[in-house]
């Protein structure tokens, strides 16, 4: 397949994906919202653990170089 043609088909697919995404927007939103709640739950956990020792945790991580 010539390069130009392939690049065009890539661009075409991108457009197609966009259209599909718009069509499925409603279902997408619901799933995305659920996923964000999920991320928020993880952030709650991280927040609690890190509130106390984040600075020490980050500054104490010191390595020697490798390959």
């Amino acid at each position: 397949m010539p390069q130009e043609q392939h690049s065009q088909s890539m661009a075409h697919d991108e457009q197609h994906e966009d259209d599909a995404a718009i069509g499925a927007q409603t279902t997408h939103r619901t799933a995305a919202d659920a996923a964000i709640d999920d991320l928020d739950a993880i952030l709650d956990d991280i927040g609690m653990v890190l509130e106390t020792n984040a600075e020490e945790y980050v500054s104490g991580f010191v390595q020697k170089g490798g390959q």
Partner: protein
Amino acid sequence: MSVRRVVGTETEYAVMADRGNPVRWSFDVISGAGADGDARRIRWDYRQEDPVNDMRGRRLERAAARPEMLTDEPQRQITNVLADNGGRLYVDHAHPEYSSPETCDPFTAVAYDTAGDVLMRRAAEHANAEGLDDGTLRLYRNNVDGKGASWGSHENYLMRRDVPFDATAAMMTAHFVTRQQYVGSGRIGLGERGERAGYQLSQRADYFHMNVALQTTFDRPIVNTRDEAHAPADMRRLHVIVGDANRMDVPRVLKLGTTSMLLWTLEHADEAGIDVASRLEQLRLADPVDAMHRVSHDLTLAEPLALAHGGTMTAWQIQVMLNALVYETAAAVHGTDTRGEPVWPDRETRSVMAMWKQALLDVAAIRHADDGERLQSMAEAGRLEWLLKWQLVERMRRRLHPDEPLERALADPRLQAIDLRWASLDESESIYARLRGRTERTASDDEIAQAVDTPPADTRAWLRGTLVRRWPEQLRAVSWTHVTTRDDADGRQWTLDMSDPHAFTQEACAEVLAGADDAWGAVRALGATPAPRPRDGDARNAV
């Protein structure tokens, strides 16, 4: 070959504890790996290592090499543990390292790469159970400490030696600079010491300062020329040092899969009637090192890169061109089906090409999305590791510093800690472990468990792993290409030459192994010869 070629990975882990130093902690982890049995008594045989052999057809004088380049003259106390899966755990400089066994496709390679996490975690648990002076050993799979140090995760590809080196270097430079957009694991901090605030696509990019060179620990080159094939003379090994230690599966399959397909293209361009050198000349970057840093720092995914012959292209456009070159070569070599798709020779190749296309679509979609939309891009974040990590960092910023830009908010160690906890191998504190179920997996938990205990069936690693599992007490030394026994009843040692990675597979050896009573009988039946006696005081043999 296709995407099916001999590949293997090497991962250096970061290790932390409460007291002591990283060198000591690394030795303690590896001691834990051998806690179970006789495998720790088997020596690694360095006689076949040749770290100063340069792919460009010359050799570095040993006297001119920096000490850390001479990996075949290790410190005496180094510990090696041969794993039942045919891989190896050892101390490299100040890091515990896992080398996977040789595998024949990117999907199997990623299962064995992940097996390294399990083996390393198990080793640290054993060591911790002993009650060390260090305190508790903790492992991380990442590449930077944010204070200036970087360590590697390497890919190895067996490729045909008759491909001109210049074409390989040109192709790999274009690829390694631009593939970061879909294989980067994400990093908080810009510059080697994180001296500037910001988020970037890749862990490793800022540590590369040359285009092509032999060394791996200083002035690191985008294309590393260490040529140590561990294979027959018509093949060589491409040793790739630019990659991140990804946690997610998809970026790791893509690293190995896309690079393999581009090597295949170099190997078959002549046959396809394609002048690959002139095609690559069109993609030659004006300043590859600068471009490497730029692509990694560019969250817009759209920055133009200056080309050597004038004009610019974005990283995405260069990837599209490289992908098209593979299609064009494959269409000529394999023919096309009724839809114009090349007739890919095997399932793994078909899958990799579909995944590569998806990666280019993902990058395009994210390029056009604003931050709000990027936070909602679930499917893409299941494949792009840097995006999933960014989503967490950005959500945390909105929560803790809603009125500050990300660059300023990143001064908060609570945000910085996300990067580190992403990398932690401790399942109870690892953020990645919490998110694994939302990412696209290419290897199941069962496949990974099997890769921990069983060698790949279709390379010489099958024989190595099987011998190590059955008769570790009868083996004196092992390398990628040889196995040497201890003294037999007559005081003779036997060496089996396994230079061909495609030989000594399960199919070729299972019958002999089933009928053998001991390692001596097995290797002699497979063609071993009496080993030369080791010379006293030979440092290269003293480990």
